[in-house]
C-alpha cells in the first residue's frame, strides 16, 4: 500500500464527495464548489498515474502532469463562467436556483448594478 495508491483511494472518495454535493445542494454556488471538489479528485487520480509512471530520472511522468496543468486552468475558466452566470441570474431575477419549476420570483433587488 504505497503512498500513490493511498492518494488514489483518497481521490476516489473526493470524487464521491463532489458528486454527492453536486446532486444534493440546490444553490448553484454549492454545485460549482462540489464540481471543483470532484475536479480535484479527478486530477489527483491523474497525479497518481503520473507518479506511477516515474522513470528516466523524473519524479513523475511529465505528460499527465502537463495535462493536469491544462485541465486545472480549464476548470478555473469553467468555474468563472458559471459564477458569472449565477451573478447575472441573481441580478436579473433576485434568485439563483436551478430547479426548473420557477417559484414566485421575489421582488427585484432595489438598485440594479449601479453601486
Amino acid at each position, binding site marked *: 500500500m504505497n503512498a500513490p495508491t493511498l492518494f488514489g483511494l483518497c481521490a476516489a472518495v473526493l470524487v464521491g464527495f463532489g*458528486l454527492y454535493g*453536486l*446532486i*444534493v445542494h*440546490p444553490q448553484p454556488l454549492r454545485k460549482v464548489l462540489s464540481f471543483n471538489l470532484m475536479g480535484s479528485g479527478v486530477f489527483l487520480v491523474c497525479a497518481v498515474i503520473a507518479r506511477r509512471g516515474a522513470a528516466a530520472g523524473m519524479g513523475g511522468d511529465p505528460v499527465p502532469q502537463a495535462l493536469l496543468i491544462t485541465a486545472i486552468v480549464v476548470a478555473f475558466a469553467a468555474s468563472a463562467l458559471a459564477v458569472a452566470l449565477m451573478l447575472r441570474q441573481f441580478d436579473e431575477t433576485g434568485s439563483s436556483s*436551478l*430547479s*426548473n419549476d420557477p417559484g414566485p420570483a421575489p421582488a427585484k433587488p432595489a438598485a440594479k448594478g449601479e453601486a
Partner: protein
Amino acid sequence: MNLDQTLLAAAMGLPLLLLLACASARLRRRMPALFVLAPLPALAAALWAGHDSMLVLGNTRFALRFALDLPGAMLLGCAAVLWALAGMFAWRYLRERADSDGLVVCWLMTLTGCVGVFLAADMIGFYFLLAVLSVGASGLVLQGEGPQAVRASAIYLGLALLAEAFLLAGLILLAQATPDGSLLIRDAAAALPGSPWRDLTLILLLVGLGMKAGLVPLHFWMPLAYGEAPIPAAAVMSGAVVKASILALIRFLPWSTALPDAGHALALIGLFGAIYGVLIGITQSQPKLILAYSSVSQMGFLVAVIGMGLAAGDTGTALAAAFYAAHHLLVKGALFLAVGVVMLTGRRHRWPMLVPAAVIALGLGGLPLTGGALTKYAAKDLLGEGLAGSVAVVSSIATTLLMIHFLRRLSAMTAVEADARAPAAMVTAWLAMALASLLIPWALYLAIPIDTLPKAVAPAALWAALWPVLVGALLALGLDRLGTRIPQVPAGDVGEVLYPLEDASMAAGGWCERVDAFTRRWAVSCIALLLVSLLFGWTLMVG
C-alpha cells in the same frame, strides 16, 4: 430518347412542370384552365408508348426508372380520361370558390403522384411518388373546409403514412432479397418467392397496399375522405388514386408461382369487404357516402379476384384485375360527377341527368351489355364455381341493391328551386364521362383478347349477368318498405373506435410529459447520469 421515352417523360413532366409553376401567384390563378390539358400526355403515353422501353433518370446506383406494362397502360389511359374530365368539372367548380390556391396545388400534386405511380418501375420511385400522391390527396380532402374535413384529412394522411411504413419495411425486405441489388419492381417480384423472408414480405406488402386500397378493417378513411372532399376531388380520388395500390398489387405479386395460402386469405378478406361495404352502404343517406361504401365493396371484390388469381397462380389475373379496376375507375368517377351535377339541377330537369346515371350504376352491378357484365364475365373463370364463385354472384346482387338505393337517394338530392340548371361545362364533363364509362370497357375488351366477343354476348352469358340484377332490384323494393327501421350507422363506422383511441393517446401523452418533467429535475438527471455510467460499466463487464 426514342418516341416511347419522350412520351413517358412528357406524361410525367407536364404535371410536374405545372406544379412547379404554381410557385408564382400569377400562374396559379390561370392554372385551372390547364387542368384538362395536364393528363393528355399521359393518355397519349398509355395509347402509343411501347411496353419495353424504360426512361432512366440518375446514375447507375440510385436512379428513377419509368416504364409501362399492359395493365399499367390500361389503367393509366382510363385514369387520364377521368383526370381530364374531372379537371374540366373542377375548373368550372373553382370559378365560384374564393380561395382556390390550395385546391390547385393539391390537384396538380395528386395528378403528378398518380401518373408517377402508374409509370414507376423501381421501388424507390414508387415509394416516393406514392408519398407525393398521399400528401396531395390528403390536401384535396382538406379543401372540404370545416373541422370534419380537417379530421378526415388527418386520418387519411395518418393511415397513408402508416401504410407507407409497412410498405417501406416490405420494400427493404424485397431489396435485400433481390440478388444483384437491383431496385426494379420486376426483379423484386421475381425474387419474392425465393426470398428468405417471403411470408413476412408478403404480409407487409399486402397490409400496406390493402390499407391504401381500403380493405375492410382499415377502410374507414375512405367514407370520411370522400364524404368531405369537394366533388371533383372525390371523383378523382375514388377513381384514379385508389387504383394506384391495385396496380402495385398487380405488379409486386408473383403471378408465375402459386401461393395458395396467401391467395385464399386475401380472397377471404376481399369478399368479406365486398359484402360488408354493401351492408353499411345501404344504411347511409348521403349519396357520396353510399358511393364511398360501394368503392369499399368493389375494392374488396377486386382484391378477392387478385387473391384467387394468386392462389391459382394464373398469369391472366393481372389483365382481368386491371380490366375490372379500369371499369370501376370510369364508373365511380362518372357517378361522383353525376352527384355533383344532380345536386345543382332543379327537380324539373333532373331526369336527363338521372337516366345515364342509372344505366352506369346498374352496369356496376353487372347489367348485361354494359362494361360491368364484361368485367364480371372476365373475372368469373378466375373465381371458379366453388364458394368464391357464389359469393361473387351475391356481391353483384348486393351491388345492384346498393346502386338502386343510391339512385333513390340521389334523386331526392336535387337543387332547391325546381328549374335550376347545372352549368354547361359540368354537364358536358359528366355526360362525356358517362359515355366513356360505357364505351371504353368495350373498346378495351376488344383490343385486349381476354375472351372472344361472341362468347361474351352469348344468351347464356347474358342471362347469367341479368338474373342477379333482377334479384337485386326486387331486394331494393323490399328495402323501401323497411325504410326507417334500418339503423343509422355514422359515416366512419369502424372509425368511431378512433375517439376512445384519441383519448387514450392524450392520456399517454400526459404520462410522457410527466416522465419528461420528472427526468428533467436536477437531482434525478445527475443520478441518472451516474446510473447510466454504472450500467454501461456493468453491461460491458457482463457482455
